[in-house]
């Protein structure tokens, strides 16, 4: 019995030496210089070669990260520290925390108070709808309510309420995915602390807006008069909250917006 144990030990040792030498020699002979960061990144990756990132294994993924075609967080297995370490290797400093920003849909025209001029029959998608008759909503700047932004939101923070997209600020993490989906450019990033908005985005003249929407900003300037200078900015017939220097929430009651376009979001 012992003899075979010894023999196996000899075999393993021999094999180790032979194979080790072969690899060593081959590695020296066929050495190719490559970006050393790739190796460093690869070390941080789990090395399971699971393919979960969509690349063929960890080393391919590491190359993609260094090449800039992938981001470290694409790896479903990596711990957060590794992701951070990888970012450091690449010199991608995570930005210092700023004031949290959330998205808000600057339109108040739902099915009841905004006019739809005709029936729409087509894809249930805002981006497709604007290609057909510019969307059939009377207001050419208002929310179409077909929910493209809601589907784009990975956190289910946008709800379509009666044909109007509404962001739930407590669910919104500020990833900004919805902003580029809106064909009307209605979604804006605002500081989370500001809970007062002018829910209108139409630059048209007051009477024209009034014709198609009962909650449009008609440019009466009541809020502007009641606010301190620069807290509300007037752009033609459209009032805008100055998010860098927001007016106090009480201004809503003080101004008494005739259409209810200036509203607080913390009340409801």
């Amino acid at each position, binding site marked *: 019995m012992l003899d075979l144990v010894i023999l196996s030990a000899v075999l393993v040792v021999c094999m180790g030496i032979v194979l080790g030498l072969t690899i060593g020699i081959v590695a020296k002979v066929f050495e190719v210089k490559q970006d050393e960061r790739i190796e460093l990144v690869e070390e941080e990756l789990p090395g399971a070669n699971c393919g979960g990132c969509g690349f063929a294994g960890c080393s391919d993924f590491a190359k993609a990260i260094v090449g800039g075609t992938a981001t470290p967080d694409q790896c479903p297995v990596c711990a957060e520290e590794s992701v951070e370490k990888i970012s450091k290797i690449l010199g991608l400093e995570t930005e210092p925390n700023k004031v949290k920003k959330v998205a808000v849909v600057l339109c108040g025209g739902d099915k009841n108070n905004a006019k739809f001029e*005709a029936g729409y029959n087509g894809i249930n998608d805002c981006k497709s709808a604007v290609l057909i008759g510019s969307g059939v909503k009377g207001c050419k700047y208002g929310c179409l309510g077909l929910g493209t932004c809601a589907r784009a939101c990975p956190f289910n923070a946008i709800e379509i309420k009666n044909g109007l997209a509404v962001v739930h600020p407590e669910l919104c993490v500020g990833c900004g995915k919805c902003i580029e989906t809106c064909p009307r450019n209605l979604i804006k990033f605002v500081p989370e602390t500001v809970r007062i908005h002018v829910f209108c985005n139409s630059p048209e003249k007051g009477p024209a807006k009034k014709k198609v929407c009962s909650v449009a900003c008609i440019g009466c300037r009541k809020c502007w008069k009641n606010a301190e200078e620069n807290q509300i900015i007037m752009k033609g017939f459209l009032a805008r909250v100055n998010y860098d220097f927001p007016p106090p929430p009480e201004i809503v009651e003080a101004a008494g917006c005739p259409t209810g376009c200036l509203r607080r979001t913390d009340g409801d």
Partner: protein
Amino acid sequence: MAEGKKTDIKLPDPSKLIVSSSPHLHNGSSVRKIMWLVILALMPSCIMGVYYFGFAAFRVLAVCVISSLIFEYIFARMMGRNNDWKDGSAIITGLLMGMLLSAGMPWWVCVIGCFIAIVFGKQVYGGIGFNPFNPACVGRIALIIAFPKMMTTWVPTRFMDKSFFVFDKSLLSPEKIEQIKGMSHLPFFHSVIDGVTCATPLGVVQTPFKLGTATEQLVGTVTDWQHVWQYAIGNIGGCIGETSAIALIIGGIFLIAMKVIKWYIPVSYIGTVAVFSTIVHFSMSPPALPGMVYQVLTGGLLIGAFFMATDMVTTPMTCKGGIIFGVGCGIITCVIRNWGGYPEGVMFSIVLMNALTPLIDRVTANRPFGKKQTSKTEA
């Protein structure tokens, strides 16, 4: 703008107009219409099946259709597509499932088959239009793997000469019988050995051929014209729906005439089987494998070629692709039938070619108009 107020001329009310993308006309076709035409086309062979196998066949068909509809309804609703079950596709899957089973099948096997077909064959992929495999084929294959004995035990028709295709042990020498018994783990042998009721001609006849034990007598029996007529009208053992060749061909031609299916898949499929089996039949030293007429008319080839290989969702879109699909199915069917472990290869061949469909689609995509000026025009 000025409205027409001065006269009694009526103008359209804009708010009642519908806005949609062009085109504003449609030829009136619909998925539901297609599905009901297929159901209609399946009717002749269903009726023939019920006629031959009696109430038992009707029971199997009914269980399959109803359970398919119920599964479709439940799962489509669970996945938020409330109207899916209405389009009739579940009825087709159910009917096909039933038609591919023996009339003596217990009800719970039917239900399991339909569950696999509807849920794993279709609903988990997102319902109609997204399933890569033909649901009925998936259900049937799952059953043949799970219940091999049941799936290869057949009920004779009401009008059959009971001894007609019952395996006749006298055709074989005693040592051959021993040899067969030794191989009875193969899925189709028990029916042979036990002589249970009746085997499908394909199963029973191929066994001796595969073992090289077929005698002149058997070859004679198979190619007898009187028997060919029996295959054609369906007075043979087998599944409920695959027996009557004539009824299936009527249904298939109806679908082709109604432009629901394209002619090239069934034609290339059946044609390949015919050519392939003829070549094999004549190229091998006797006793050879069963000949062309026999291969085409018995077994699930016709129902597969007309109703399953033509399923739009799982087959290539172009004509070229369809022909490749049909030829591939034909070759795989013949290979499995003649040399494989299963007596029937139609379902396997369709599932395998379904798996190839994305690749075929990719290879056979039409040349877009105006791409590559060098190639010849194809008006």
